[in-house]
């Protein structure tokens, strides 16, 4: 894709984030590598899906991209500019979040109009007299009737609240929107409406999305490319059709095998993943996936795999490294 070659609108270069966590009473604190060397590129107008189990570091990565958490090392670049050189407001103008739970992400004591207009106030955009018109414009855009301007979040349904959150995220006309499980808290019939809205807005406004979701069917429907995260690293990245049609990494295959498509008679698949998601404080040596991997070789227990280029992305697995295969 040529778009990917141009300067990406958002890029991370070997970003890491380490937390010092308590290992128990009177024990020394230990390092938890929540994000452990992630390099991603988002081209303008692209939807990148990010999938992985809870605890894999998806949300930590999202918080760093939003400028809410500084990386321990590595760079985050917005249109080639390092985020560290921009102040938080400048980052917020260009990257906005939509969170999972529209019940807890809206201030219950503010009216809908106040909530949607807050970014304008924070960034001192234009005169206060112009804000109501802008708020109405946003409400039209996300399909919220104007009569709700004076209502409080508690008076709205889950889907309407998520529309408010979207309006608030878009009022500054950001370039990138980080959608962190945007529909997980919603009912099926509402989820589809919000997904349709996100797709329309993406096309109309030329937005770039990072879509974090555990719902692989939703990711396949929305994303152009997909990155699979496991214990702080992107273990596979590819164009959506490739990733779903020809998954390379054993973890990606296990994830896809676990998806319950609405097809009766197929039964529940057994992905043979074993029960234990490893403790991120004490990650397994070598390839962090090896204790759960059906194809683990001796080398996987000692040497961490390097990213290998694939047709449309990369994979981190010794199975695709001829040298390592021979070594085993």
């Amino acid at each position: 894709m040529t778009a990917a070659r141009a300067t990406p609108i958002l890029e991370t270069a070997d970003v890491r984030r380490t937390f010092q966590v308590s290992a128990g009473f009177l024990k020394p604190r230990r390092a938890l590598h929540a994000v452990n060397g992630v390099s991603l590129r988002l081209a303008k107008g692209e939807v990148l899906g990010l999938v992985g189990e809870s605890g894999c570091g998806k949300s930590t990565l999202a918080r760093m991209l939003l400028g809410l958490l500084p990386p321990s090392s590595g760079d985050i670049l917005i249109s080639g500019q390092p985020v560290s050189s921009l102040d938080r407001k400048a980052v917020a103008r260009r990257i906005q979040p939509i969170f999972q739970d529209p019940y807890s992400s809206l201030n219950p004591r503010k009216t809908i109009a106040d909530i949607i207009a807050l970014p304008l106030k924070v960034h001192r955009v234009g005169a206060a007299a112009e804000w109501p018109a802008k708020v109405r414009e946003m409400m039209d855009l996300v399909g919220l009737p104007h009569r709700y301007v004076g209502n409080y979040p508690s008076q709205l349904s889950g889907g309407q609240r998520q529309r408010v959150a979207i309006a608030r995220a878009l009022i500054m006309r950001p370039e990138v929107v980080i959608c962190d499980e945007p529909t997980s808290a919603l009912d099926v019939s509402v989820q589809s409406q919000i997904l349709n809205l996100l797709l329309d807005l993406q096309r109309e406004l030329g937005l770039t999305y990072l879509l974090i979701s555990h719902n692989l069917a939703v990711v396949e429907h929305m994303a152009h490319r997909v990155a699979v995260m496991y214990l702080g690293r992107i273990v596979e990245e590819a164009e959506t059709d490739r990733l779903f049609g020809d998954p390379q990494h054993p973890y990606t295959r296990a994830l896809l095998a676990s998806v319950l498509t609405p097809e009766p008679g197929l039964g529940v698949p057994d992905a043979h993943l074993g029960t234990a998601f490893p403790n991120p404080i004490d990650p397994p040596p070598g390839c962090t996936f090896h204790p759960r991997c059906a194809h683990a070789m001796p080398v996987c227990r000692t040497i961490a795999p390097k990213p290998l280029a694939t047709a449309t992305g990369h994979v981190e697995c010794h199975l695709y490294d001829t040298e390592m295969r021979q070594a085993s």
Partner: protein
Amino acid sequence: MSAILEVRDLRVEIPIATGTLVPVRGVSFQVERGKTLCIVGESGCGKSLTSLAIMNLLPKRAKRTAGQLALAGADLQGVDERAMADLRGNKMAMIFQEPMTSLNPAYTIGNQLEEAYLRHRRATRAEARERAVYLLEKVGITAAGSRLRQYPHQLSGGLRQRVMIAMALMCGPDLIIADEPTTALDVTIQAQILHLLASLQREFHMGVMLITHDLGIVARVADRVAVMYAGEIVETGTVHEVFASPLHPYTQGLLRCIPVPGKTRRGEHLGSIPGVVPALFGEATQCSFANRCPHAMPACTAAPIPLTAIGADRAYRCVLPVEACVANQARAVAA
């Protein structure tokens, strides 16, 4: 067939300041031994209250009535709380959505597993412990003996849900009611838990009533499906019939809302059901779905719609004849 649970005309009424809420309005179904009935619906459709009503765990001010409510042929309505407590956790057990809030954080896993067994069986602590270890191993927990001494917060979400399942199995129940048992879990763990539940069900020949909003889960685990909307069952049948040829406009709409890998085209609009669920005050006077239905007509709002049976085990609640429903679905799929 041997129905382990028989429910006929179950109603739940909750008096409130301005009248009476009727969140469950005349629901009838059966769960057979060794089979799974999935109750599917969106929030507020009454699916969770239905399960709580069966277990007699409704909030105090809620009133339950039923034409029939029987577990393995024994009436559940006349029995007092003491007798009900003898059944709960013994003959019928429940698995809830959030294992963290349904496990007691102040007691060890072992304590909580053994409690029901000690309550219902005249067993010694050693026997209860042995049973707990046996079941923890059954649900795929390694080092079961040492897990017994752990507290819920020391376990991951998947392990907690396994503990919940082991706990439900302690007394060898005839019926398991699982209310969104995997909603809080990752897809990988979800598949494992459902796989486990299915194999245990076969092994112990239990009836399972599984409540969920996830159509993928329904398709993969259900033998029979009951679709609930606004406190009523709007469609019921075998899982193959309901997915292959949904009759009720709500079921048809729901199935169009979800992206299906390989079927829906990327980036295209998904189906949606505009509008909101009606308030569940008082008695139904019309079709509860009429305000959101693309096929609504005057007859829909004239009177409540009865459930129409087609054959022995399929029914739907719509004024349209079957042929018209099938034609609507075919048109929508073609579009």
